[in-house]
């Protein structure tokens, strides 16, 4: 589904990604862990086309197409979604109107029927149940005044509405209470299908107990230093990142 080869990217002229290689196949769940500032969010934002980042080298294929030929909104309509670490507040635009618009833009792109406000009402009620969101959040302005956890819940609601093929979830678990973490983890699992894939960015193995990855990657200094199975997450929890860095340095010297 997604094939990243030697990807490099910079922001304001400073290199952040320094050669990323990653293969994600349909049906797979991948986790990326790594120290603060290592480039995890950057990788996600580059994949969804954030304009502040400049791709300086390498190649990304999404379903066989050159990802960088697509604008951010085209990537979204092609099925790529990122749940952001820090979702933006948009005053004056109601959450419900925004969700319906986003849904209909995608439906239009896929040649499916658009939903009118009444039909959408039924549709969205199923979705808010999935993420256990209170109805009043639909009438509020998009993310405006939402708590950190409420914003994350709203990101997953958007994911549930858009049903992306590839979802990148950046620190979904930060700011969530224990119950919310379980509810949203379950919701993400329910949305996962054999023809879909997930890339989970996190600092904590806890969320990976609910959303169980087949692959865990350690990203540090703009490179993936180690990839292994899900047991790596627990090992990182116990031992920190230093040993991975040392191992990589030794490997690099070999």
């Amino acid at each position, binding site marked *: 589904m997604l094939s990243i080869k030697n990807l490099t990217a910079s922001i304001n002229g400073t290199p952040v990604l320094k050669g990323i290689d990653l293969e994600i196949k349909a049906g797979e769940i991948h986790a990326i862990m790594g120290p603060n500032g290592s480039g995890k969010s950057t990788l996600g934002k580059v994949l969804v086309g954030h304009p502040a980042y400049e791709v300086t080298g390498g190649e990304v294929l999404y379903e066989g197409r050159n990802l960088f030929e697509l604008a951010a*909104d085209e990537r979204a309509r092609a099925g790529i979604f990122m749940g952001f670490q820090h979702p933006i507040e948009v005053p004056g635009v109601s959450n419900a109107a*925004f969700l319906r618009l986003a849904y209909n833009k995608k439906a239009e792109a896929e040649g499916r029927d658009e939903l009118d406000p009444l039909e959408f009402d039924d549709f969205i009620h199923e979705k808010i149940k999935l993420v256990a969101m209170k109805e009043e959040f639909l009438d509020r302005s998009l993310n405006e005044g939402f708590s950190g956890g409420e914003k994350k819940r709203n990101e997953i609601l958007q994911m549930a509405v858009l049903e992306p093929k590839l979802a990148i979830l950046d620190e979904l678990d930060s700011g969530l209470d224990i119950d919310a973490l379980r509810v949203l983890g379950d919701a993400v699992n329910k949305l996962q299908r054999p023809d879909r894939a997930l890339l989970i960015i996190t600092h904590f193995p806890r969320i990976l107990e609910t959303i169980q990855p087949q692959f865990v990657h350690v990203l540090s200094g703009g490179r993936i230093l180690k990839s292994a199975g899900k047991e790596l997450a627990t090992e990182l929890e116990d031992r920190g990142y230093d040993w991975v860095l040392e191992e990589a340095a030794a490997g690099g010297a070999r």
Partner: protein
Amino acid sequence: MTTMVAGPNLLADLLSGPRPTEWASLREAAELRLAGRELPATREEDWKYTDLKALAGLAFGPAPKATVDISSHLLPEMVGTRQVFVNGHHAPHASCASAVPAGVRYFPMSHASEACHALGSIGNGVAKGLFEDLNTARFQDGAVILVPKNLKVALPLHLLFITKAETPIAVFPRVLVLLERGAELELVEEHHGEGAYLSCPVVEVHVAEGAILRHERVQRESPEAYHLGTLKAEVGKGGQYHSRTLSFGARLSRQQPWVRLAEGAEASLDGLVLLDGAQVADTHSFLHHAEPQASSHQLHKCIVDGKARAIFNGQIRVAPGAQGTDAQQQSRNLLLSETARVDTKPQLEIYADDVKCSHGAAVGQLDPEELFYLQSRGMNADDARNLLTYGFAADVLTHIPVASLRRALRQLVMARTQATSLGDLG
């Protein structure tokens, strides 16, 4: 010694007609203050950016009675609480106050005659503005609203001022709102019109101790109109006055709200201005924290396109002794073209030491992070821009309590921000 003015003298012309007979002493006093005055010029600091030269050359005749079709202005919550004024005259057949609860006095000023002692007395002690005096000297009619002690009026009241100018005319809408102790009211005041005219409304408000007035003000004058409005509000101890002024129309408009807060009073003074073409809209507000522990909140937003120009001057005065004052002011402006222009200036005069005052002004384009967020959900760049522009404006409408008005204004804002193609954003 007086200088001779070449060309027509607008003020003298407007005052040349006969003086209406009621409120003679008020009118006389206003005329005395106006004697020898001329239209303000841009060399005066207060009028620096708002040039009235084009107005000075025009001649406006007296406003004749007229009939208009008001069906498009009716709002379901307020069909039985409306007073309609056409060309400044009360329109009894278009009005209907049958749903107004007993105890509320709600009538045209022409019926009130000299009974309203408070008329012209709100904000006594501060200098009267030229257009305020002009209104006092020549207003034909207007609305009086008196809500007695502790009465909470369930239905909003609707004031419609409609101008239909076949030839250029001048109208002087007048409103007096008095809320006694503990009373509560929601008031919607709208100005609509067609043709070329000058409208100089004056609204006087007195909110007594613990009373609450919510006041929505909609300015949708014709594109050829001049609208020079004055609002004066006195808010008593622990009282609340919340107003929202939405300016869409007029070739040139100016809003001059003045609010005085007594101890523990609260005020909000929000504004939305949407301009394009060569429109000019000026807001000069004055919030007077006269006593301790009062709070005020002001959010003023402008979206300016074409060669239009918006002006905001937000004056806040915290009097000596007004400790515990909390005053917040935000001026946020969106420029949609290279030739659009905004001049915004906070003006804080703080004479007490224990106060919390904050103000901020921003003039710019849409936030790229917000644009990207919408695009990352599949909206193309144009849709994202239009949605954000709409949201920027609709933000001010979110808390309008009258649902049908809120919906109508959202529609209007959608049309003006090219967001109509995005479907129902309600």
